[in-house]
């Protein structure tokens, strides 16, 4: 078990151009943490993981695992285990041989190898399949063999590269729970890459949100924190938009009044919304974006709608039974972006009609023109 520390890590695939893939990544991963790297395609999250594994070299910066600098140490000596997106099982070997391969290379004696493999198979429920070839296994079983291959090595850090993305939806939920259980049982440091934020929110002790690097940006590490920190206090508009499903709604406006614990924002469509946000670093007249999550919207006549209300033309409604989605055109939104409402109750409304929705003041996020968040003074709770 070991800490993983990244400081000022940079990756550049093609040194001839100045286009970095990753820049200025600083992460302090504590022993036993379950860390999830999340971000849209092409943000370099897999690259970062492969750099920790040693499958990619580090252009600059330092990587230490368990207090030892690992930049120039080959993968096999970093004491890590990795589960690949494609599982990467050795097709010509049985499940047992797959798991024992690394131990055999280390010239362990046969009895120790057998014990370790059987132990891992026991944890993962793979015992009936030890003599099978990967070809004869289902997707979930292959996934578990890949995990078992890591466990037998008893690494200090487990690396998972989008391990569930090849499974169907039902199996994905099941394997997600099994991975969570595994983490509890073996209590190892786990670094997990995914683009699925449900996996990120449910599994992680801490989430690291990465964004595709912009040429001028200082870093593409957007935020590193617990799932609820990211949900409730996103540091910028990118994180706010990326965490949460459906996406947070953003409305354009300008600050009209700055109070002690709240401020008032006049939307481009004219409505004035009160937000429980400390906007003291801003100034009146500053262009801002007001963010509100679809699940925090309430009925226009609800007592909770103390922030104000907005209205727009309904485009589509979706009734899933347990929840109800409504997409509408709000003039304050950017062109082509729908304003999403999520209710726990159904509304009898048709496309084309006008609908008003209430915004609780404590549910509002406020971002300046650079996308940086103003600190919230209160966190909205439903129910």
């Amino acid at each position, binding site marked *: 078990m070991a800490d993983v520390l990244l400081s000022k890590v940079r990756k550049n695939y093609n040194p001839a151009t100045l286009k970095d893939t990753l820049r200025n990544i600083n992460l302090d991963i504590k022993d036993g943490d379950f860390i999830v790297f999340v971000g849209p395609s092409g943000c370099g999250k897999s690259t970062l993981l492969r750099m920790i*594994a*040693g*499958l990619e070299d580090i252009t600059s910066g330092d990587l230490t695992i368990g207090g030892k600098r690992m930049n120039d140490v*080959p*993968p*096999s000596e970093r004491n*890590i*285990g*990795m589960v*690949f*997106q*494609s*599982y*990467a*099982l*050795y*097709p*010509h070997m049985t499940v047992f041989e797959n798991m024992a*391969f*690394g131990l055999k*290379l*280390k010239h362990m004696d046969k009895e120790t190898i057998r014990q370790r493999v059987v132990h891992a198979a026991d944890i993962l429920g793979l015992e009936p399949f030890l003599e099978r*070839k*990967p*070809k*004869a*296994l*289902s*997707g979930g079983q*292959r*996934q578990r063999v890949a995990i078992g*291959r890591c466990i037998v*090595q008893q690494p200090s850090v487990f690396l998972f590269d989008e391990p569930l993305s*090849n*499974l169907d939806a039902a199996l994905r939920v099941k394997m997600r729970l099994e991975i969570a259980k595994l983490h509890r049982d073996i209590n190892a440091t786990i670094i997990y890459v995914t683009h699925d934020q449900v996996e990120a929110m449910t599994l992680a002790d801490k989430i690291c949100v990465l964004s595709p690097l912009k040429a001028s940006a200082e870093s593409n590490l957007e935020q590193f924190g617990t799932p609820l920190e990211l949900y409730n206090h996103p540091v910028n508009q990118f994180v706010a938009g990326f965490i949460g499903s459906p996406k947070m709604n953003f409305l354009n406006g300008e600050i009209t009044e700055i109070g002690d614990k709240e401020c008032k924002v006049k939307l481009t469509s004219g409505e004035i919304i009160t937000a429980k946000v400390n906007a003291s670093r801003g100034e009146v007249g500053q262009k801002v974006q007001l963010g509100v999550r679809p699940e925090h919207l309430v009925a226009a006549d609800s007592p909770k709608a103390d922030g104000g209300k907005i209205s727009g033309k309904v485009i589509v409604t979706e009734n899933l039974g347990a929840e109800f989605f409504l997409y509408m055109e709000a003039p304050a939104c950017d062109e082509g972006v729908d304003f999403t409402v999520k209710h726990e109750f159904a509304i009898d409304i048709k496309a084309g009609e006008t609908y008003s929705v209430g915004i609780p003041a404590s549910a509002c996020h406020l971002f300046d023109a650079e996308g940086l968040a103003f600190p919230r003074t209160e966190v909205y709770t439903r129910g």
Partner: protein
Amino acid sequence: MPMVQSKNLKYRKASAHLFLIVFLAFIIFPLLMVVTISFRQGNYSVGDVIPTPETSTLDHWKLALGIPVHGYARVSGADISFVKTDEGKTVLYAAENGTDPFEAFVTAPFSVKDAEHASEDQRFAVKAASPDTAPDSANLLSDDETYALSSALNGKLDISVAKDDGSEEHYSIEANDRSGTSYGLYREKVTNPPFPVLHWLWNSIKVAFITAALIICLSTTSAYAFARMRFKGRAFILNSMLIFQMFPAVLALVAIYALFNRIGSYIPSLGLNSHGGLILSYLGGVALHIWTIKGYFETIDPSLEQAAAIDGATPWQAFRLILLPLSVPILAVVFILAFISTITEVPVASILLMDMDKLTLAVGAQQYLYPQNYLWGDFAAAAVLSGLPITVVFLLAQKWLVGGLTAGGVKG
């Protein structure tokens, strides 16, 4: 047939089948022809396509396999006549008729009945000696009787004549072919195999096997580099290999000769007239195999080797324990291709090899065909023999040619 098809399509299918059958027959015909010639009496390239027992012989195969052939050659200078003795036995006189030098002899009396019952491989032995007197003309058989008796005795007698130097000559009364008509005295002739065909075959197998094995070693390692590593000049080397391969090796025969002449003056075992040199020259044909194997390697997910690297494997271990076992089908294909092309290669081998006992079969078999005398039958037997190792290697390798070995390793 799972799909419903229109009538029109059925006709087209039938004609496609017909075309294929004709095409196959057309392709197989030359092979059948060569096999037939190798069993045909005499060294003729034309004759019956389907051999009959009367016109077939194993002589060409015996020569090819290094077994001396016992044949009988007609003694044109001899006249034969039969004389009945008083005991009811027969004596054969063979006299010189002047066209060809021949030493006359007379046999001991023998029983025609016993001789007629002799079998092909156990001929009826009769001793003979130089005649003291001429045959008694009174007891001489008439022409018709002689003819009938000759027919009856065809191939049944084994007349041994002791010579002054202690050796023995064997004669028989035979037809010049099995269904033949011309009877006379035939002298046994032993034909020794003119060429060491089996030795050539062994040379071919040895050279082809070593070449194919070395080509596998060279091409897998180079293909691995081209498939997995990124280095300067990679695309240039790959393309130029392909382009240079397009020039036939025949164009470079002079250069190859000069090159190996020079190499041989430093390392004789790799020079002219050595199998080492021949193998070395064949290794030059590795480019196409590199392309083939590289293509196959690129279909194997590199994450397998990365997983092996994390498991603690060195690059060599990842290559040998993971990549190679998965590539067995393509390695089998490349081995067979290299083996076949080496066995059948003539131009370079005919330039580099000189000694009779160093030749490969493909080169050596042509020794049968010299302008004065095309020994088609002997050549055909050697040619069929050279196909034998290819067939054996193919049958052995078929086990490894199964595809789909990588299935199931990756993805769900």
